[in-house]
């Protein structure tokens, strides 16, 4: 139970960080964003400790040994939370745009809340033995690589949202205080692109790794199951974004809308697909 307690501590810190992120949106005073950052960092530390305990429990089953425990909703969502907060800490540490907290952290918070809900309501921190198909070293690579890319896309979505708001502010001809708090259009546009340019290779390489794993398990790279199909759609849409931006010079609103479509696909691939197909879920064997 210690695991769940530690996770709840982390989730509480994430919640507090998110709230501070929102406060910073309306209140000048760098200390809000600084505290947001510190709380998140401590939250990640608690989360890592919780994950360490989970790993120990997971590895008590010999077949699970040295694989990551993401074959359950709790495990998968927890890993996703960690990926979002981790990438946010990196992005925020590099670019120091405290304002982004309000746009990115809600995703981390949602994932953490989902994890906590799962932990509370559905049989605690459920630990399952890995299905035979998941007993592969790819288990430690393919899902995690893809989650990292999703997390970075989540950050890019937050940046895109900030850009749309800034654009509206400037178009309104009566910019409010928020306009002066947000980074400039060009900076946001550039950051949105950079994040996607970092995440896109990770996503595609993750998908290709999945193909190679599938070939090892079933002798085929690609089976057009719903998850595979939607991950391909996600990659295609981000490819459209990159081409339109790099070749056709799409910037600003149009580019952001395209990248947001991509993120909608990310969400659908991660969550929505489980409602249309039983295959390729975090619990199923294929």
């Amino acid at each position: 139970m210690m695991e769940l307690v530690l996770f709840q501590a982390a989730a509480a810190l994430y919640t507090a960080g998110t709230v501070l992120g929102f406060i910073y949106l309306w209140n000048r005073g760098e200390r809000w964003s600084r505290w947001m950052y510190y709380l998140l960092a401590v939250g990640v530390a608690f989360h890592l400790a919780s994950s360490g305990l989970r790993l120990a429990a997971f590895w008590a089953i010999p077949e699970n040994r040295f694989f990551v425990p993401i074959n359950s909703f709790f495990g998968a969502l927890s890993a996703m939370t960690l990926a979002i907060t981790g990438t946010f800490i990196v992005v925020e540490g590099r670019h120091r745009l405290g304002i982004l907290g309000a746009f990115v952290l809600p995703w981390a918070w949602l994932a953490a809340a989902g994890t906590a809900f799962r932990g509370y309501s559905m049989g605690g921190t459920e630990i399952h033995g890995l299905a035979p198909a998941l007993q592969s070293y790819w288990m430690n690579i393919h899902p995690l690589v893809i989650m990292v890319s999703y997390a970075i896309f989540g950050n890019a979505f937050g940046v895109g949202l900030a850009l749309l708001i800034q654009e509206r502010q400037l178009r309104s001809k009566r910019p409010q205080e928020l306009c002066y708090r947000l980074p400039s259009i060009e900076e946001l546009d550039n950051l949105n692109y950079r994040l996607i340019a970092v995440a896109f290779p990770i996503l595609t390489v993750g998908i290709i790794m999945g193909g190679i794993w599938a070939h090892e398990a079933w002798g085929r790279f690609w089976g057009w199951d719903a998850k595979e199909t939607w991950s391909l759609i996600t990659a295609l849409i981000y490819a459209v974004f990159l081409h339109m931006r790099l070749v056709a010079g799409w910037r600003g609103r149009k580019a952001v809308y395209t990248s947001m479509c991509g993120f909608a696909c990310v969400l659908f691939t991660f969550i929505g697909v489980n409602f249309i197909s039983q295959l390729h879920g975090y619990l199923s064997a294929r």
Partner: protein
Amino acid sequence: MELLLAGINHKSGAPVSVRENLAAKGTPEILRRLREAGWTEAVVISTCNRCEVYVVRSGGAPCGGLSELARLVEGLGGTNLGSHLYRRQGAEAVNHLFCVTAGLDSLVLGENEILGQVKTAYEAAFAAGATGKLTNILFQRALFVGKKVRGETGISAGQLSVSSVAVALAERIFGSLKESSVLILGAGQMAELAARHLLSAKVSRLYIANRTFERGRELAEKFQAEAVRWEDFPRLLRSVDVVLTSTGATEPVLTRAMVSAAMEARMGRSLFLIDIAMPRDVEDVAGELDQVYLYTLKDLQGIVDENMGQRRKEIIAAQALVDRVTEEFAGWLTDTAAGKKASLRHAPGRSARRGERPFGGAS
């Protein structure tokens, strides 16, 4: 020990010649005269909007009171000022000084230059050996209060001139203006004013296009800008980031079609159009294009008015803060005079943190 103040400012209605006379005397001279009259601690704040003399009357020294100080200032100004000269003493004088550094007494509410001017005045007095224990603490306190009021209230939030609003908006679009180049259409007075402001924002390049090339070239030489022939300016739209128009043309000189054609070649980089001409120089529909931001003089003026209004709303909060700090200071003053050991809190309580507005930037 008591603080005395005599001074004139833009509001007191004193003839301009007095301020000029006082300024002509020079601060060192005034300080010397004050010392001769027996005031050993004195600071003179002299700017184009005010001239104020702060002195300390200590119990022991043979120096005069408020009326003597007023007479001396009138003597320096060369005329009898009567009610135009304001006189304050004790807590009232402290309060006045704090209002000054807070920008509450300025012509442009909450402006920032006054902080630097007070600092210079204090440093000059300090260098001349005219400061003592009270003035040292008082002026450092005053500068601290000035910053505090600006930080905790919106008294100096938002820009108050059309051109600084334009520069602030450009920075919201392009980030730094260091790589941005600017094209000015027209070479009139407004164009010149705008050019001056944009150059102070350190844009990388300035182009000036005017229908009569010679006029444009004259202005361009003044600002180290590049003069462009009128017929060449549409081509420049592809590379410049900010276009400011202030021609006397009766028909729009910048049409939607021209802007749209330029946008094709800009690879998505935004374009900021500022139209300060009357009648308008830029077709209104040009501002509907993607990545094009069009602001007219009316829009900019609207923002200025709004900022002005916002600052006015902050007066009460700022005044309250100043009053509270004054009270604290006056209390300290009485305690010290009574020989009690007292200390000023350097970071006064947070209870008065109201009306905080996240609206940064200098005016």
